């Protein structure tokens, strides 16, 4: 079947894509490796005629860098918190949605809504909901004009208001806000995939379980979850990959300061670190950090898959 005419035709059709991929994908892979392993590399200096020694200095610098460790801690913390919470919530919602008839379509649409949003824009809405207008705590003449709707709700239920994102706020409060926002943002995709998975499970399994008098919780644990395991593995893996690349949702809530006004950069992530290094013209360091991020994602995906093989049936 391989004739010459088909050959050159195929390459002709592929050529635009291949050229673009060579320039914007293949070359960057090579160049990133090169830059990462050249000591203190800077593109501007190179243009000026400087040469760089081969070495792993960029990696050492990145790892020694306190800021980077902070970024890594933030990223991992957000991943570890948001992936399980959002997966579990999405699973419960999908199972509940799958079990009802009335209102199913409209509820399904509502749960999908957060997906079609701009994460910067809606981040600003969340910021408004958590924000306190006025000066907060500390001084005698404390003026609080509005504590923000979330604090209003907390106070309504008899709780204490919290300084979530303003100057003087605690790290854990910032993280809580981020977790809420990221989970809210991550739910639609997970619900969509899991509900699709549930709907493709043969109803006869449930009939068979009913004939045998299986309790609801047992049906969930022994039939639904195992049969859904490929989908669960999929949303968990994509969740971790997305989580390690978290950046814009933080910009949405805290702005480019990546933290409350008195602690800029406190919530920066690994991707944020890469961009910061890039803006400061430290291409070598940025490349090293990006490679570290890539390796971490690779390892986490592998671990997930290995763990998945044990728990994903058939």
């Amino acid at each position, binding site marked *: 079947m*391989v*004739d010459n005419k*088909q050959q050159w035709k*195929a390459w002709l*059709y*592929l050529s*635009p*894509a291949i050229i*673009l*991929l060579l*320039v*914007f*994908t293949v*070359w*960057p*892979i090579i160049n*990133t490796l090169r830059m990462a392993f050249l000591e203190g590399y800077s593109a501007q200096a190179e243009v000026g005629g400087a040469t760089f020694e081969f070495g792993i200095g960029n990696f050492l610098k990145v790892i020694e860098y306190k800021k980077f460790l902070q970024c890594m801690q933030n990223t991992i913390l957000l991943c570890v918190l948001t992936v399980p919470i959002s997966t579990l919530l999405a699973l419960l919602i999908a199972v509940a949605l799958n*079990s*009802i008839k009335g*209102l199913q379509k409209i*509820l399904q649409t*509502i*749960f999908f*809504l957060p*997906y*079609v949003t*701009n*994460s*910067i*824009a*809606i981040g*600003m*809405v969340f910021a*408004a*909901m958590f*924000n306190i*207008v006025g000066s907060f705590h500390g001084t005698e003449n404390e003026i609080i*004009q*509005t*504590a923000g709707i979330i604090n*209003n709700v907390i106070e309504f239920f008899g709780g204490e208001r919290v300084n979530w*994102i303003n*100057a003087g706020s605690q790290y854990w409060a910032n993280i809580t806000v981020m977790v809420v926002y990221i989970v809210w943002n991550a739910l639609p*995709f997970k619900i*969509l*995939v899991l509900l*699709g998975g549930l709907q493709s499970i043969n109803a006869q399994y449930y009939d068979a379980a009913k004939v045998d008098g299986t309790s*609801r919780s047992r049906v969930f644990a022994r039939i639904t979850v195992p049969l859904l395991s490929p989908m669960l593995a999929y949303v968990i893996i*994509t969740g971790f990959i997305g989580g390690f*690349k978290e950046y814009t949702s933080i*910009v949405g809530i805290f*702005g480019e300061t990546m933290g409350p006004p008195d602690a800029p950069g406190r919530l920066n992530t690994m991707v944020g670190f*890469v961009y910061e290094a*890039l*803006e400061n013209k430290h291409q070598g360091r940025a*490349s090293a950090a*990006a*490679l570290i991020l*890539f390796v971490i*994602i690779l390892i986490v995906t592998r671990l997930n898959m290995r763990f998945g093989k044990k728990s994903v049936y058939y």
Partner: protein
Amino acid sequence: MTTSKKNIVMREKDMQKVSAQQKVVQALVKVGVYAFLLVMALIVLFPFYWMLISSVKTLEEYRMSVPTFWPQKIMLSNYVEAFTTANLGRLFLNTLYVGLVSTLLSLVITILCAFAFARLEFKGKETLFGLMLATMMIPGELFTITNYQTVTQLGWLNTFTVLIVPFLVSVFYIYLLKQNFMQIPNELYLAAKVDGTSDIKYLCKVMIPLALPTLISITILKMMGAWNSYIWPRLVANDAEHRLITNGLRNAFTETTGDVNYPVQMAAVAIVSAPLFLVFIFLRKYIMAGVSRSGIKG
């Protein structure tokens, strides 16, 4: 195997009691499920509601210590102010232009590529496709560093080109469309060949119409991508002439905490969000179909 002793025949009364109990339990479970779903739906919807009502409040009302859940006075002027403060009109046009051009070019490239992979035989086909799929594993940040240098050297900084060209090829869309093309029986292609139909004509007359749902999904996701892109545009084209909507929004309202004019900010957010919602309402089916396969935003 006789009927076991444990299966003692239940008497009629017991049975009626059992079935009445079952009904109560079933009803309770149903109420619980609906309650859970409705509460979750309210939580999901609340930010949208808060955005909308805040966007029409006066600043004084917004700052009241006891929040109002329905605005006392509807201030549509917030929207006018938002539109002019952030120069939203210009941002809209820029984003629309970049979105349309990049979608069109991207579709052409994707279709040609998918056709070659799905229908033509050539040396190294499997290897090439495998390599392309492998690049999907790599986080985009890794490319950005070099791409920034490349576009700088090409003199593309602060142009529309820089917003369009680097992202024209999406391996994922090629993969999606290739799968779709492969479902179309090869006999159709061979029949067209026998009739002397050219590739391009066959592509336009047979394959594209049959793969239309996928193409629509790709179009929408690509447009949404332009609408939501933030990092790259901020890096390479953050001047007033070429700025895209998300950056414009973030630039115009840098403050997120403290004493901000939230009603106007919320109005701006509502304006930016509206097109996405409209698209969603009319094309929900295609968006959901595309998203469930991709797992990526835009």
